[in-house]
């Protein structure tokens, strides 16, 4: 087993466990922390595939900012452990198990299939996803979409300020 595969396996286990922790943890802060670990390890996986910019964006945007806002909201809302989430109906629970199992199978087939064929693994062309090429694409070909997205976000910010500052 090569070093790369070993590192991948360790990180994959951490990713799966932390994703599991998100839904299993009773405490919302622990759930959020599991999600933070999940996002961060995912970024490490991107680094392993030489998608540096993607990994950095993952850490910067998701781990650093979005999850921080999640935690902020959780703390401000002062959520406790959700005791009401227990589902008593056996019928609904069996349906949940069934759909969950189908989802696991679907994902697993996509993971195990390529491994069984012993493919060299997914590979991108040289320079794909580098900071320079992404920046060039973002500010030349996709500049209108980019700017419109930023205006949209600005509208969202202004709207939320208006809602928060509205006086009766």
């Amino acid at each position, binding site marked *: 087993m090569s*070093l790369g595969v070993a590192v991948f396996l360790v990180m994959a286990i951490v990713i799966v466990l932390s994703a599991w922790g998100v839904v299993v943890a009773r*405490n919302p*802060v*622990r759930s959020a*922390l599991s999600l*933070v670990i999940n996002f*961060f390890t995912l970024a490490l996986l991107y680094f392993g595939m030489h998608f*540096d*910019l993607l990994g*950095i*964006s993952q*850490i*910067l945007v998701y*781990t*650093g*900012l979005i999850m*921080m806002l999640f*935690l*902020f909201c959780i*703390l401000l809302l002062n959520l406790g452990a959700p005791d009401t989430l227990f589902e008593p109906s056996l019928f609904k629970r069996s349906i949940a198990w069934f759909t969950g199992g189908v989802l696991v199978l679907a994902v697993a087939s996509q993971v195990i299939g390529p491994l069984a064929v012993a493919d060299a693994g997914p590979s991108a062309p040289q320079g794909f996803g*580098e*900071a*320079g090429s992404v920046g060039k694409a973002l500010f030349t070909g996709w500049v209108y979409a980019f700017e419109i997205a930023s205006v949209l976000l600005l509208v969202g910010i202004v709207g939320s300020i208006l809602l928060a*500052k509205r006086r009766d």
Partner: protein
Amino acid sequence: MLETLAATEPAQGDSVWWALLRIAIMLGFVLAIVPGLIWWERRLLSWFQDRIGPNRVGPFGLLQPIADGVKLFFKEDITPATVDRLLYFLAPAIALFPAFAIWATIPWGPDARLTPIADVDVGILYILAISSLGVYGLFLGGWASNNKYSLLGGLRSAAQMVSYELAMGVALACVILATGSLRLTEVVNMQFEPLWGVVPWMQNWFILTPWGFVAGIIFLITMVAETNRAPFDLPEAESELISGFHTEYSSMKFAVFFMGEYATMLAFSGIFAAVFLGGWSPLPLNWEYLALRANDASLPWLASALTFIGGPIAAPIWMVGKMFGGITFYVWLRATLPRLRYDQLMNVGWKYLLPIAALNFVVVAIWMQFGWFALLGALVVLFLLYVNVVVFLARGRRDGDDEMLTLVNPQVHTEKTIEVSRS
């Protein structure tokens, strides 16, 4: 050992062993230097405050950090009864992680085999990303302590760090725009060019250029805020929050928080040195050029001395010296400035630093694209526009347009807004 390594991997230093060596050097340096920093801060602070400071343990009190460490090791580790045990235990570790991880892309010298640990082409973004993780340890520590003051400290640190990250990012974006590279080693090497492109015997340190000066000052302010140091130490304000997020921490857990803070301070000093202060060059002088001139003037000893000063062997010394300078600056600020009020903190971050940084970004863009003359013209137009807006706003205020005022000016202590809130 080193020779065999060098024989197998001559120039690149791509092997695992070189990487491990780089990591070991960095970790050893940070772990060894942090106690020294604490001693330096305490001595310097006491001189600023006209005291003597710790001078009893060892010469000049140099062994004081060791005594402190022993004391912290053997103190009782108190865990309050109502904390969230898992997160309370994890928080110091989470706080320490970014403090060390941030060192990965900071270059110390020109030798690519020994430094930086990973010379990735997203180095500056990496620093921003990792420093954005720094808030989790404080935040979770504050929350897990199950203490209102700690929670307040954690909330404050989260809001503060997210706010100041923006201005820091834009300030660094100016440098990225000017250098066209996200690689920190390239940013440093770009600063070894002639000053402003015209002064051959000086180096183009970015702090010496107009846009770099503005970006550097903004970075300096935001880096103090990011490390939660005075005057931005609201998350641990002793007088109001009783140390904030680490109130409930004792013994080694507290020491780990403490160590993380100092390691981060040192790292940010290093980043500032690398991005704005010419990295591993001691003075903004073009050493190679000066050595050539000394040779021309038949002063070979001066030439060799200049080559040594600018060379790879002395480089880490200057870099570490600049880091110490950064720490000294931190202590100086702490001894000089009183803590900001919370609204002042937010005002400075959002209303001054971020717009100035963004304006500076536009200035760099215009300069890069159209040159100095266009930039001067644009600045004149901007100034006139600004004056217009200020005059317009001032007139609006005199007219007593309160509806508008409350949106743009939420200061609670002026008479005008108190009237508004009554109505």
